[in-house]
């Protein structure tokens, strides 16, 4: 059989409930973004897992190079003051 043009690949991100970030759940094939959203609904929210869907053409995603991850992530790891556990909170103070 002659090979026909494949539908592009899309990455799917789902917000499972209000207040949470969209989270990557997987990918699928669709001919355009409208169809990609619809297919994402059918494929990834069959059990009402989401309230909002993002789709992104997979080839539009730029990923960091894991071989250089030392230089990419090392600086932030040394900035411990960004992490909340760096700080001592006096006893009796809650909800912080």
């Amino acid at each position, binding site marked *: 059989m002659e090979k026909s043009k494949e539908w592009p690949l899309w990455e799917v991100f789902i917000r499972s409930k209000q207040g949470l970030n969209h989270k990557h759940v997987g990918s699928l094939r669709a001919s355009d973004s409208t169809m990609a959203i*619809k*297919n994402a609904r059918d494929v990834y929210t*069959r059990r009402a897992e989401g309230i909002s869907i993002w789709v992104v053409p997979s080839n539009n995603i730029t990923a960091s190079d894991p071989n250089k991850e030392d230089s990419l992530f090392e600086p932030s790891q040394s900035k411990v003051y960004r992490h909340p556990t760096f700080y001592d909170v006096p006893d009796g103070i809650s909800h912080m």
Partner: protein
Amino acid sequence: MTEKQALYKYLLRMGDDSLILGQRLSELCGHGPILEEDIALTNISLDLIGQATLLLEYAGESAPEKKTNDELAYLRIEKEYVNALLVEQPNGHFGDTIMRQFLFDAYRKPLLEQLLDSTDKRLAGIAEKALKETKYHLRHSSEWIIRLGDGTQESHQRIQNSLEALLRYAYELFFENEVDELLIAQGIIPAANSIFPIWEKTLHDVFEEATLLLPKNKWKFQGGREGRHSEHMGYLLAEMQYMQRTYPNMEW
């Protein structure tokens, strides 16, 4: 005819439309053109079977002798099914399946919208649930009609042919008789002439974008609503009823 008798007959029509179309679509599970679409069609089938379950349950309670939804779904003879001829038509190719779905969705959505105001609260409740599903079905089928109509030459020709073949079954969806008269008067169901223009407009808009032409011939086939079906119906029922007929009075 009493109001209850009329309601029973009307619920059967709606229930049978859902049941038979759901049955048709369920034949395709595992055979869709691409995995994503297989899942989408199965979703629609599941929604329709769910709607049939509720509608036939209500019908069974309104029946002259009470029946369960399963008895109604599985144990009537062909002449007692009152679905429109459109929904029993075979799946054909994907274009046929989608065209059948579109013609039906475009009618079902405005019907359900108007049933929200029904004086029969239970029916209004079923309509509310079904409407959410049907809006989505209509979006799905319209988008596909447009894609296929304005896709390749081959897809355009195929979907145009599907339209020619199926449109003549669709007018029967607006069938009315004394059942409707009585229920319309009671504010239980809307009149067909309040749905028909909306259906026509949906067709017009979608076909225009899909570059499809409405057939000039407005000849219509009908009979399903009165229990006169096409030859396809007997086979569909033989398959669907196989277990209940082969092993009577058993629970599964």
